């Protein structure tokens, strides 16, 4: 089935998210849609899937114009979507999730679960997914959850499958498996649209590549193009993919973590006996696929986890068991991985957010009163220094773009004397310009002699920034290796294999 998007334009108010987009997916091809964060790829796919209505343009299937009023129509027409953030109900079983929306029923509306289970097994066996229809989705590892999403789409006889940033949460191994699955699907006659911003994957599996930038199609490419060519198309200028950084001059160990274990309320061990140190003037990157304990380790350092065993020492003072307030006051700066949920109060102004974690004492608070004029001066200075684009320091932070929001967080954290700087997923969801800015700032902090920890799931970022890399898998440290360790080794470590084994393979 040939899918064509013709002249699609989608606006949100005065913002044009998709601008006259033309895209043709031939039958049985894997077509990659490449673009950086914010380029408009997901919007386009939501238009295709019937979740949005485009202001202009048409969707054609086999040259027949379609009118989708909702996802139901798109699915009926044979378009299936594997979402970036899984559209699965965690407390339902696999079979229930797959059957939702097109349930088979017996008399009186009773759910026909055996039939649903059978269907799941059919599809699962056909592609070797090995998925148990009665497993609760919330108990499944992320890679398996993604397969459930695929089964869901296939169970409706999808002829075009759209994958929206599928590899964000997969190990390199799982990514390879996904590539294989895509090839299998292609062999079975399904067309695939593969949305991503990762150049390597695109070149590995795509038949054709369309590049989107800022809502417009800027060109097509073939998989034989080089990374640099693709990156330039994506961003519109020559992109330097590496970060300018002088070699590190590490000092004495500043943060020392010994035998750290973090337990969740049900007793499951999330961080398992972890020991490492970070020296002054170096960047330690904690790498690993999302969900292997890095988040919990970071939270334990910041005092956000209640059940922590082991020792955390910063410049000789113990931090374990301390409250968040105490950890912050000890000189730790923190950029949380979810800035809108944990980093900023959206309804507060830029100025108010700049004092969010210093609301207890001077210089912002004197004798119970907030020093408003001091705050205003401070905010104006920081907005200038960090180039935060807004309509003034009284703008609510929720109105800023992702990049500007992250700048506010950085401005706040980097404006005090830090003895440790922790940045979790600092460039998630940011455009390239903001990513460069953030990276520059992180390196500058390191060069000023502060120990820095960067937690990132993006291997590119880890490779660019790190002086040393600590890979985590399943709550444990797989290894701590130098910053120039080759990607292949890192990939294996992220899947749980220690360097010695990997080297032998």
């Amino acid at each position, binding site marked *: 089935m040939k899918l064509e998007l013709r002249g699609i334009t989608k606006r949100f108010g005065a913002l044009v998210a998709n601008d006259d987009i033309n895209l043709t997916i031939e039958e049985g091809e894997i077509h990659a849609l490449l673009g950086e964060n914010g380029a408009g790829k997901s919007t386009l796919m939501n238009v295709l899937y019937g979740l949005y209505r485009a202001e202009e343009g048409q969707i054609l299937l086999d040259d027949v114009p379609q009118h989708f009023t909702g996802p139901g129509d798109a699915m009926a027409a044979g378009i299936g979507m594997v979402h970036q953030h899984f559209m699965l109900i965690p407390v339902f079983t696999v079979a229930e999730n797959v059957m939702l929306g097109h349930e088979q029923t017996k008399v009186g509306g009773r759910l026909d679960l055996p039939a649903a289970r059978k269907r799941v097994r059919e599809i699962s066996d056909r592609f070797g997914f090995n998925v148990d229809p009665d497993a609760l989705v919330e108990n499944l590892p992320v890679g398996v959850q993604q397969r459930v999403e695929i089964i869901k789409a296939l169970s409706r006889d999808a002829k075009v499958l759209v994958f929206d940033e599928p590899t964000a949460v997969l190990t390199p191994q799982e990514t390879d498996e996904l590539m294989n699955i895509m090839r299998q699907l292609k062999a079975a006659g399904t067309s695939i649209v593969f949305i991503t911003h990762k150049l390597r994957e695109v070149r590995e599996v795509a038949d054709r590549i369309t590049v989107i930038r800022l809502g417009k199609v800027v060109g097509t490419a073939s998989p034989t193009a080089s990374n640099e060519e693709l990156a330039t198309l994506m961003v519109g*200028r020559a992109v330097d993919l590496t970060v300018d950084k002088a070699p590190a001059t590490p000092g004495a160990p500043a943060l020392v973590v010994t035998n750290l274990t973090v337990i969740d309320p049900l007793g499951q061990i999330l961080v398992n006996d972890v020991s490492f140190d970070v020296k002054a003037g170096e960047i330690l990157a904690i790498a690993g696929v999302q969900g292997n304990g890095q988040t919990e380790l970071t939270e334990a350092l910041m005092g956000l986890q209640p059940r922590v065993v082991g020792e955390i020492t910063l410049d000789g003072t113990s931090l374990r068991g301390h409250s968040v307030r105490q950890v912050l006051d000890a000189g730790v700066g923190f950029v949380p991985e979810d800035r809108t949920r944990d980093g900023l109060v*959206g309804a507060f102004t830029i100025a108010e957010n700049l004092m969010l974690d210093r609301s207890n004492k001077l210089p912002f608070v004197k004798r119970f*009163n907030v020093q408003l004029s001091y705050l205003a001066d401070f905010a104006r200075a920081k907005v200038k220094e960090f180039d935060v684009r807004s309509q003034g320091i009284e703008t609510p932070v*929720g109105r800023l773009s992702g990049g500007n929001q992250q700048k506010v967080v950085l401005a706040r954290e980097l404006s005090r004397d830090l003895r440790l700087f922790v940045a979790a997923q600092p460039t998630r969801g940011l455009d390239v310009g903001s990513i460069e800015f953030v990276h520059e700032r992180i390196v500058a902090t390191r060069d000023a002699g502060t120990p820095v920890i960067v937690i990132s799931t993006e291997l590119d970022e880890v490779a660019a920034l790190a002086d040393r890399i600590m890979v985590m898998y399943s709550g444990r440290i797989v290894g701590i290796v130098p910053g120039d360790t080759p990607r292949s080794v890192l990939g294996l470590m992220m899947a749980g294999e220690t360097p010695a084994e990997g080297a032998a393979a």
Partner: protein
Amino acid sequence: MSAAQQPTTTPAPTEPAEPSRWHNIFREITTGNAIISVLAVVLALLVGAVMIAFTNDDVQESAGYFFSRPGDLIGAVWNSVSGAYSALFQGSVYNFRRPSFADGIKPLTETFTYATPLIAAGLGVALGFRVGLFNIGGRGQMLIAATLGGWVAFALELPAGIHMIAALVAGVLGGALWGGLVGLLKARTGAHEVITTIMLNYVAFYLVSFLLRDGFLKTPGSNNPKSPATKETAVFFDILGPNYNLHFGFILVIAATVFVWWLLGRSSLGFKFRAVGENPNAARVAGISVQRMYVYAMLFSGGLVGLAGINQVLGTTTSGFGSGIDSGIGFDAITVALLGRSKPWGVFAAGILFGAFKAGSFSMQAAEGVPIDIVLVVQSLIVLFIAAPPLVRAIFRLPAPGAPRRKPVPNVTQEVVAK
């Protein structure tokens, strides 16, 4: 495009983000338009008018023969509604039938007197809202405040002035304690305050009933479940002289409003309160102890509601109180806080308005036989309409505001300078 239009040297494209819909709705509800507020009041009064007309005997009678003498029905409707609402006005603002200004203005002072506890309790509820807590426990907090403060007021012998202050403090503490208990439960166990406050209302009611019947609130020698009268040395003094009921409590709530304004807008504690109310996750990561803020907020909130309770005992109902001392103020306070958009001076104004309704409703009942429950209906409708500006707009055919209140996003051409 002149030569002066150089591309900016910054590499970052300025893509102002579309504000989330959450944000728009938040702005709508908390700031809103003044016109919507006024129209909401008008609309609610209209509904009230319909209710008055429908249930009026004359209207019902003349509706029976509408087609032969339609004028009668219209006349009856007009009479019933205008009679009721003019009674409302004369009972709350100015009574034209009185000979002198001093007499005629008495209703306005009554309005202020009724508004006093509404403002105090409304401030308490509003403070709770700002921290993200629903304090529905007005009745219980007022009762406990009245119990503790009232006991000090009638049982102790203290010099004038000191006695009043002692009773006042005891009352506010009582309310604070009953509210703080809710905050503690929420902080320690996560129990939702909507349920705990309502349950504690009933617990307080029965506790006070017991104390009035057989405990330390009992009037010796009487079987009437009413406490002894407040001693003269503890009573709030009248601020306009003996002819008027307006007493010191009104000054207190003005002070309370100033205090809450300072607390929320200028103090560091208020900053933390608001942070927790807007985004408890971010507040926690920023080192603010959300648990502690819940407890403090409920202490303050309960204390303010307690002020309303002790106000009744020391000012308005000084001859001894029963278990109905709260007289629905606890629930009215919720509507006051919502109408006032949880802002201190908004609550003050809303309290005055609802105080006027209350004062006027008694004369409506006396003069026209309209039950005072209608005030509850009008108040609730006002709140519902305030909360749904699109509904009000639809009814009055107002144009919807265009883009939300910010300048439209320019479609920047995003030319980026090569490095």
